[in-house]
């Protein structure tokens, strides 16, 4: 399309120019009389050219936007289908699991190592199913929005994680750097309970993959109407080829096998952040550490209410 339009202008102009030049060279005696003034001619060509360019550019932009929208729609659809699948899985599994638990309880498991294994495992399966359900529930639950001071959220979450770690006898060094100059970080509009949950998960993840000798840094900043919060640690890190899957449900890095966890922490963070119209990012190097960053818009415009 655009090429053809360009050619419509460029080709006649070039042809006329070339013809005139050829005439001038082959027949020097011929006088070329151009009735339109050169100024008007240049101006006209210029205007025609710029209009064409403008049309071409805007069409190209529109096409790209359409392509992006289609891609986004595809991603949203895929996500919705995935969540519908999780809901079905939950629905199909909850009755059998309830029945197994009731049967084991009715029979009694004490004294039978086999039945005790069965009970522990059905319990585990049950909590897995309910975790998956919570994840799909987070995707659709109504957000209760207010102005949230992320500095306060981070401080509360650090205190909660530190309390847990101290109880386990393995506290970490957390350093929190929230800029206060030239001004404090702007509040974000969001659901304070869910944002707390996301930040708590980032911190407890960082704690999980570090030892008492490591350090965990929490920093934040503001750019282009977004507030970002990053939790960085000097822990075990994630193998490079596994990085892209880390946001998927149940994904666990191969070097995390010995560390308890469900593989639902990061997906939960992603769901919460994306519902607030934000983005997540992950940098990691095996043996060096990991930094997870969340970015949230300060204006409420991009909230995904369902």
């Amino acid at each position, binding site marked *: 399309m655009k090429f053809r339009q360009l050619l419509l202008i460029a080709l006649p102009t070039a042809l006329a120019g070339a013809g005139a030049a050829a005439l001038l060279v082959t027949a020097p005696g011929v006088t070329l009389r151009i009735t339109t003034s050169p100024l008007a001619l240049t101006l006209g060509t210029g205007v025609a050219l710029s209009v064409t360019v403008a049309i071409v550019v805007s069409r190209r932009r529109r096409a790209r936007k359409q392509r992006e929208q289609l891609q986004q729609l595809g991603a949203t659809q895929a996500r919705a289908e995935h969540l519908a699948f999780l809901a079905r899985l*939950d*629905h199909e*599994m*909850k*009755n*059998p*699991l*309830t*029945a*197994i*638990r*009731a*049967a084991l*309880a*009715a029979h009694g498991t004490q004294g039978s190592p086999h039945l005790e294994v069965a009970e522990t495992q059905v*319990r585990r399966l*049950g909590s897995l*199913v*309910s975790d998956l*359900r*919570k994840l*799909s*529930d*987070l995707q*659709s*639950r*109504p957000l*209760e929005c*207010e102005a949230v001071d992320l500095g306060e959220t981070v401080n*509360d979450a650090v205190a*909660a*994680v530190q309390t*847990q770690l101290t109880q386990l006898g393995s506290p970490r060094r957390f350093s929190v750097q929230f800029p206060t100059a030239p001004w404090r970080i702007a509040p974000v509009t969001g659901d*304070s*309970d869910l944002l*707390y*949950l996301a930040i*708590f998960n980032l911190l*407890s993840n960082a704690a999980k993959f570090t030892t008492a000798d490591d350090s965990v840094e929490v920093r934040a900043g503001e750019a282009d109407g977004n507030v970002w919060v990053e939790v960085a640690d000097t822990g075990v890190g994630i193998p490079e080829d596994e990085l892209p899957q880390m946001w998927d449900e149940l994904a666990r890095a191969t070097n995390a096998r010995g560390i308890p966890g469900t593989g639902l922490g990061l997906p*939960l963070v992603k769901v919460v952040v994306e519902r607030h119209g934000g983005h997540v990012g992950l940098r990691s190097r095996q043996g060096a550490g990991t930094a997870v960053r969340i970015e949230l818009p300060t204006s409420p415009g991009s909230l995904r209410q369902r």
Partner: protein
Amino acid sequence: MTDQVKVLLVDDEEAITSSLAPYLESCEFEVRVAVDGIAALAAAASWRPTIIVCDVLMPRLDGRGMLRELRQQDDWTPVILLTTVDASTERSAALDEGADDYLNKPFDPAELVSRIRAVLRRSVVGAPPLSAATRLIAGELSFDRSSRRVMLAGREVALTPRALLLLEYLMGRPGELHSRDQLLATLWGFDFPASTRAVDHRVAELRRVLGDDAGRPRFIETVQSLGYRFVAKVSRG
């Protein structure tokens, strides 16, 4: 045998009723099974159970329909719904419809037994529970449940939806101790570890708005490391 607790267990899944019924019997309950809402209504009328434990998704008449029908007949037999109530709107709907409690599947059977006992402790035979009253009054605080407005000393106060839900729940169950985890699971629908801060925040909001002093509470008492309790006497309006 007359004061034995009679549990009507309603579920269309035979695998559940055939395992859960013997378990409940082993916990000294007398148990009967109904396979759907219609059968449950019939059994409720003829057998007069002490409490009904009821699944939600069932053929013919589901758990919610059964519950509505029961309450319309002015039958206030306590009901525990076995359901996965996901969105918080549905959750408050379940509470509004007059369920006394509910439990998500899959659940720990022992947890069901302790819920049954807790519900029976607070219910008065034949009388609608406070949690079903349209207006709750505690001193100068009143909660109009149909318009969802709260008045303090004659003036309306503004509360966030979750604080409203929490106040409604606590006022409907005065004198009972509610753990943070239980409040979270029931009212927020998520019980992630360490997310109980959400409950503390809403209690703080309620205290601020209602002018309640945590040290000498008129309304909501903090029970150290256990949870919260609504301490004022509540009557129906």
